[in-house]
């Protein structure tokens, strides 16, 4: 797989968190995903998951056999697993509130699990990247899209992308709220 040197250097020895959609798509199209996972492996990246993503992936298995195989699949290529702790709830809420400012309707709300992933990315921003194909769930108001890969899977083309959390963007969003408060104060006076 051809990946620019800058991206290779950036990802060297980093942690890659796999979103549920990547787990589902990769088991369907493992042949097409092999190059991508091999790239992470040769670049000394650790590939892993998170307890909430494990839940999302396993809950669709109706039978015990499917659940067992899915657990095996997760365990075979997970180098690490992140545990979502209550200490991240504050960040998770703040991220959800920022998204709410941009939502036109309530059904556009980004799910709790996606806010939780972002809060984890925030806390490990220098070392942890997310691989996902649901681009709308990780808006660029808080994230950076580092690299988009294109996988030709025959009847569908998948574009998994790597995202990181941008602390400067979060700072700007917080600052914007402060500005709104100041404007309100001025208007009242």
């Amino acid at each position, binding site marked *: 797989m051809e990946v620019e040197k800058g991206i290779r250097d950036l990802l060297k020895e980093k942690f890659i968190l796999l979103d549920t959609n990547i787990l589902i798509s990769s088991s369907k199209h493992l042949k097409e995903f092999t190059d991508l996972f*091999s790239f992470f492996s040769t670049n000394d990246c650790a590939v892993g998951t998170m307890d909430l993503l494990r839940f999302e992936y396993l809950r669709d298995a109706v039978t015990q056999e*499917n659940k067992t195989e899915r657990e*095996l699949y997760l365990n075979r290529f997970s180098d690490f697993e992140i545990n979502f702790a209550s200490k991240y709830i504050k960040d998770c809420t703040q991220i959800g509130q920022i998204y709410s400012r941009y939502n036109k309707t309530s059904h556009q709300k980004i799910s709790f699990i996606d806010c939780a992933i972002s809060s984890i990315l925030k806390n490990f921003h220098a070392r942890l990247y997310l691989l996902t194909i649901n681009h709308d769930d990780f808006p660029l108001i808080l994230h950076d899209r580092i690299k988009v890969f294109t996988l030709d899977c025959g009847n569908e083309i998948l574009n998994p992308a790597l995202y990181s959390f941008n602390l400067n963007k979060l700072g700007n969003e917080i600052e914007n709220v402060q500005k709104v408060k100041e404007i309100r104060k001025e208007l009242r006076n």
Partner: protein
Amino acid sequence: MNQNKNKTKIKEDTILVKLNSSKSRINFSELNKIAQKINIYTELENKWKLKRASEIY
């Protein structure tokens, strides 16, 4: 190795609950066998879900 140092750092943050640090490469042939089973089970389950839904509604 830096990779191990990084992993240790994350472990210190007490968020890491599982670590396969000894594993260096993914065994794709083994993974493929598991993926094939998942696809078969998922397809069967989806058929069962559709059949069940048609019986209910």
